[in-house]
């Protein structure tokens, strides 16, 4: 069953694909283009996810599909100087930084950089021209488009995004930062696509920031594929601070080979509609996969975290810790599934989701889920939904702390369990600071914003996140 809205936008997307096929396929390898055909067929069959599907029961896309979106099939932002419009202060230290504007690579740096150690960083579109053999080895190999409708839509339309390739044995010292900005006057719908490969014994830290510069309506449908080959170590940080009219669906597909180590941290500070999908294929023995999430939402914000960890191999460990604080009428959905297959003996899996609701109107749905077919495993899960402890509140006030201060202290303490998991000290401090600001009501993309959105020329502002 499809609603008329989703059918209408589905039909127009299918039409759009047909009309713009040439432009869309322009820079891609033949393999990627064959995948597109397959993907658009999947999308034709399945359409947009709907609330009768298990993983979308509490997250209704249909209100977002009621908009006339526009699409860009060529890079109009090549030569834009994004420094003029945006400075990301999440991680302004010593990083290799790349900016995407409305899903397109911004050519303020060379479209592709090859570091002396062989690491390749840059635009995915460009990489398809220059390194087709690398693209074909990995592209589409982790994303499960049969399972995920929006990932199939992305696979059909995706043209650009981030490409990182770290060769065997190379440890990239500097974190690589991806800044994803949306800045458009009219409603836009786009499909960024990222491909990250860390070869055997390689090491990589990726900081991925999602921002919007206007309150305009946008729908970002991102797919990221990450490959951690044998003994590779990948730290992935995602920081989301989006406007209330933005919809952001990110499908993260992780593939882990033997003895690899992956840490994923997703921090949602603001966002109108956010869905973070994490799909991990633990393919090689002795691997470890840690997934931490923190969402701080208020007003009518909606955040959905869907995690699927597939233990396919022996002696691996996975941990999930997702925590959230919900104010006003905010809504959070958590569904975490751990599948331990028969051959995945000696698996250790841990899953935790904890929520604090600050009002009676805030709502959360949490569904921890373990599915275990091996017999020698150690798995646990826990989920809580609660309020700030009134006994602790009184205790703090009886020492002279004002009610507001006491509440903030408890919320910051609750959130800091996730922030403490961040292993880079400078980034941890920075994010702790942002979380503190957020919980003190000093960080808001909407309310205390310096962007002056009603102005016709929003591009002349230097955005200092610390002043938001």
């Amino acid at each position: 069953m499809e609603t008329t809205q989703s059918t209408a936008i589905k039909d127009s997307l299918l039409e759009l694909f047909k009309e713009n096929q040439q432009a869309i396929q322009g820079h891609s390898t033949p393999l990627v283009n064959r995948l597109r055909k397959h993907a658009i067929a999947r999308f034709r069959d399945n359409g947009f996810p709907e609330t009768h599907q298990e993983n979308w029961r509490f997250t209704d896309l249909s209100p977002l599909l009621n908009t006339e979106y526009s699409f860009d099939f060529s890079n109009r932002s090549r030569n834009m100087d994004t420094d003029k419009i945006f400075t990301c202060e999440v991680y302004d230290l010593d990083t290799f930084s790349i900016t995407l504007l409305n899903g397109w690579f911004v050519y303020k740096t060379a479209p592709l950089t090859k570091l002396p150690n062989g690491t390749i960083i840059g635009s995915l579109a460009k990489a398809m021209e220059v390194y087709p053999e690398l693209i074909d080895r990995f592209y589409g190999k982790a994303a499960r488009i049969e399972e995920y409708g929006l990932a199939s839509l992305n696979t059909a339309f995706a043209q650009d995004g981030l490409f990182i390739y770290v060769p065997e044995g190379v440890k990239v010292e500097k974190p690589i930062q991806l800044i994803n900005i949306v800045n458009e006057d009219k409603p836009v719908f786009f499909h960024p696509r990222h491909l990250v490969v860390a070869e055997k014994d390689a090491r990589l830290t990726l900081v991925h920031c999602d921002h919007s510069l206007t309150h305009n309506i946008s729908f970002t449908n991102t797919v990221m594929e990450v490959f951690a080959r044998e003994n590779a170590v990948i730290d992935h940080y995602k920081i989301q601070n989006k406007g209330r009219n933005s919809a952001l669906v990110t499908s993260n597909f992780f593939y882990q080979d033997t003895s690899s180590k992956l840490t994923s941290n997703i921090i949602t500070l603001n966002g109108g509609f956010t869905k973070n999908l994490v799909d991990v294929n633990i393919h090689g023995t002795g691997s470890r996969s840690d997934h931490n999430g923190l969402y701080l939402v208020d007003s009518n914000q909606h955040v959905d975290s869907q995690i699927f960890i597939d233990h396919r191999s022996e002696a691996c460990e996975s941990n999930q810790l997702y925590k959230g604080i919900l104010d006003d009428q905010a809504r959070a959905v958590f569904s975490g599934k751990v599948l331990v297959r028969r051959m995945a003996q000696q698996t250790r899996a841990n899953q935790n989701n904890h929520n604090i609701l600050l009002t009676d109107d805030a709502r959360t749905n949490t569904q921890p889920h373990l599915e275990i077919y091996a017999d020698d495993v150690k798995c646990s899960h826990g989920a809580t939904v609660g309020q700030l402890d009134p006994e602790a509140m009184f205790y703090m006030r009886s020492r002279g702390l004002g009610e507001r201060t006491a509440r903030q202290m408890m919320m910051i303490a609750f959130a800091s369990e996730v922030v403490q998991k961040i292993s880079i000290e400078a980034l941890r401090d920075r994010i702790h600071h942002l979380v503190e600001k957020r919980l003190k009501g000093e960080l808001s993309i909407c309310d205390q914003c310096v962007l002056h959105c009603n102005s016709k020329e929003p591009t002349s502002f230097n955005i200092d996140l610390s002043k938001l």
Partner: protein
Amino acid sequence: MLRINNLKVSIVGKPIIKGLSLEVEEGEVHAIMGPNGSGKSTLAAVIAGRDKFDVDEGEVDYMGESIFDMSPELRAREGIFLGFQYPVEIPGVSISNFLRTAINEKRKHLGLDPLTGAEFLKLMEEKKRMVDIQSKLTNRSVNEGFSGGEKKKNEIFQMAMLEPRLAILDETDSGLDIDALKVVANGVNSLRSKNNATIVITHYQRLLDYIIPDFVHVLYDGRIIKSGGRGLALELEEKGYEWVKKETGEATGA
């Protein structure tokens, strides 16, 4: 300093304190003794500002002002301190951060500059020695994973840091071994001055061997049924609560 006049308190319609009067002046130590359920902890909680109780009648004045017009934090900043019978665990909030915030909110209220980091650390070291608290304890989350004795010591440590004018210690001695009890008593005694007052709420007279009270009150069924000097505590220990009950029952003709 503290004047309680004909106080009546109930919780969900059930009377707990049924007409209690008490006066505490600067420099005094009062002990309130009584069996379980007599209203001792309720009295302490009402003075500190716990809002789950209903005050049905009576007045409580502190430094000449009615405390019912003051929020719990305002009472604390004005110098009231409650040592909890069951200190609450607050995961993720370190003792030092908690106390520094508390002290600086109090100082702000009193029109004083906040303590600098160095000043705060110095004060903390000094008070730690006073109550014999382990150094590493203050880096931990408030009361989280503390033993019973550590929690009570931490209450006395907080009291030492906040330097209250009126301290109410609610069964601080319960669950303590004799060494911990001495540490707690020692903390209280070293903070005693002619400008502040202490109310010690206890079930047993044992603590009063170490904290010598000026006055002893027996609280029974929501009323103070007998007051006296230190000797009353000893007599009570010897003869039990039944004795006071019988004696006052006869005296009032009940």
